[in-house]
């Protein structure tokens, strides 16, 4: 299958929407991607034909629903190279996944004074759960710094990891696009006797992923950024690690026995999936993974590298010093997340001006306030690229950006 963006674009109903006579240019996939028709169809079909509650029913529909959900679990396990489907725990989003890990693993393993190492480029989803443990348990946080190029500064890595219990780090920054050296970080963490959990929210949608090859212990990501529906996220963890973690939410499906005096927990993955799961959403995420697999993640990555290179080159050519593109300058070492500063137009105003031309980018702190502070910024306008974007989208962005001059009078 050749990677033909026009064909791909046609698979995404929303991208053909026309507003006020103009087509739309969607450049906010780092916040949330769009979905192909096949994902919508999979969910619709599930609801029209096979919906019933899972795991507990002996009748035909309940079996179909359970098979659909467990089939999706296997697909997702395969997609990230997980050795066992039962290591894939479904949550509602990456944020819940990280909170589950922090609360459950943290309660089992962390005590007052224990050290957790983060980086300055984390999303709030990988900061606030640890602040909460600082408040409840009294752990200590250390931060791997970010350098001027927007990469992790690993000079002091060994010192930072010394005596640490955990390293929790993003695989790709949602502000800078920086791809972090996860294998190296995993080795360093393990050498220091620490566990490593990785935030793959921006990574899984865009690069071939193999959790075993990365050498990590646990991994979180979210469905809606990888062509899947809202309402579903994943925590992957090694079996031994998950087995040793206490349960997080209590209720139906996660128990083996309940009496008035207590309860015992069910086996993986059920132990961490209390209550009725997001069945249709899990089925939808399975279809999203099918779509990505059919395209081939190597090709998705290649497309994005070349599009990112085009975007960086063409925006620089057109706007010169009037534009700043934050993050690594080398397209091959970053994702297609372009945090822009244009002249001294505030990012919020940039987004407003672009909106006039149906060009959709995000303005703000991107839930990474500590990083913004390190960068000395209050906000950026972020254009993010995905498999359905093409060079024409980048050109439209550039044209729309130029129109800010008319309004702000430069």
């Amino acid at each position, binding site marked *: 299958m050749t990677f033909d963006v026009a064909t791909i674009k046609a698979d995404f109903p929303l991208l053909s929407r026309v507003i006020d006579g103009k087509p739309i240019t969607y450049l906010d996939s780092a916040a949330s991607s769009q979905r192909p028709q096949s994902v919508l169809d999979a969910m619709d079909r599930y609801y029209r034909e096979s919906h019933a509650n899972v795991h507990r*029913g*002996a009748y035909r529909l309940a079996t179909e629903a359970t098979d659909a959900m467990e089939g999706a679990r296997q697909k997702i396990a395969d997609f990230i190279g997980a050795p066992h489907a039962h290591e894939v725990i479904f949550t509602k989003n990456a944020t819940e996944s990280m909170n589950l890990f922090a609360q459950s693993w943290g309660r089992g393993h962390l005590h007052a004074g224990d050290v957790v190492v983060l980086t300055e480029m984390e999303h709030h989803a990988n900061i606030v759960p640890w602040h909460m443990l600082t408040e409840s348990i009294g752990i200590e946080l250390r931060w791997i710094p970010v350098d001027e190029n927007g990469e992790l500064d690993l000079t002091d890595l060994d010192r930072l990891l010394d005596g640490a219990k955990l390293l929790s780090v993003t695989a790709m920054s949602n502000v800078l696009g920086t791809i972090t050296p996860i294998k190296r970080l995993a080795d360093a963490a393990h050498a220091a006797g620490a566990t490593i959990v990785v935030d793959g929210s921006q990574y899984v949608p865009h690069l071939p992923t193999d959790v075993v090859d990365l050498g990590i212990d646990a991994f979180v990501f979210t469905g809606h950024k990888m062509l899947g529906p809202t309402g579903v996220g994943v925590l992957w963890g090694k079996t031994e690690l998950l087995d040793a973690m206490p349960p997080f939410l209590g209720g139906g499906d996660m*128990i083996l026995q309940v009496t008035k005096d207590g309860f015992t927990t069910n086996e993986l993955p059920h132990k961490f999936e209390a209550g009725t799961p997001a069945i249709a959403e899990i089925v939808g995420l399975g279809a999203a993974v099918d779509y990505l697999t059919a395209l081939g993640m190597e090709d998705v990555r290649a497309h994005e590298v070349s599009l990112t290179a085009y975007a960086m080159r063409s925006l620089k050519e057109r706007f010169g010093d009037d534009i700043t593109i934050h993050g690594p300058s080398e397209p091959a070492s970053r994702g297609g997340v372009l945090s822009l500063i244009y002249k001294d137009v505030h990012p919020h105003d940039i987004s407003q001006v672009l909106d006039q031309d149906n060009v959709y980018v995000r303005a703000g702190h991107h839930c990474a306030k500590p990083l913004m502070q390190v960068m000395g910024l209050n906000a950026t306008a972020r254009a993010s690229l995905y498999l359905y974007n093409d060079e024409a989208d980048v050109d439209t962005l550039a044209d729309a950006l130029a129109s800010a001059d008319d309004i702000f009078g430069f």
Partner: protein
Amino acid sequence: MAGLEDLYKEIILDHYRNPRNRGELETPPAVKAEGFNPLCGDEIVVFIDVDDSGTIADVAIGGQGCSISQSSASMMSAAIKGKTTDEARDLIESFKGLMSIHEKGLDGAAAEGDKPDLSMGDLSALRGVVKFPVRIKCAVLSWNTLAQALDDARTN
């Protein structure tokens, strides 16, 4: 689609109505293991009394459950009584092979285990269960509980 006659064979219903070795054994000398099916609430209690030569001298079955889990437990008790623990372990493996749809596909006929030599006796009547995948857990519950009891007997 599989018909109910594949599931509810006469011999299965017979074991369900007249369960063999129903009861309790004194512990010790017997060991006791409990198994739950968290989905449907089936409970199986297996008592085994292993003598010094490693033979299962006596066995008793307690608990509550559906026709499949109860008849499977009953047949199991009859099959292992007087067998050595090693033979019982082989039987567990054979039975689970019979029940393993994942490797064998859903066609009952092809679902025979890798060790069909071991005499399964009445147990082969349960072969039709693989056509009803949700019921496999019912059929296997007592066997997993037996495996646990055998482990416990060893460590005692």
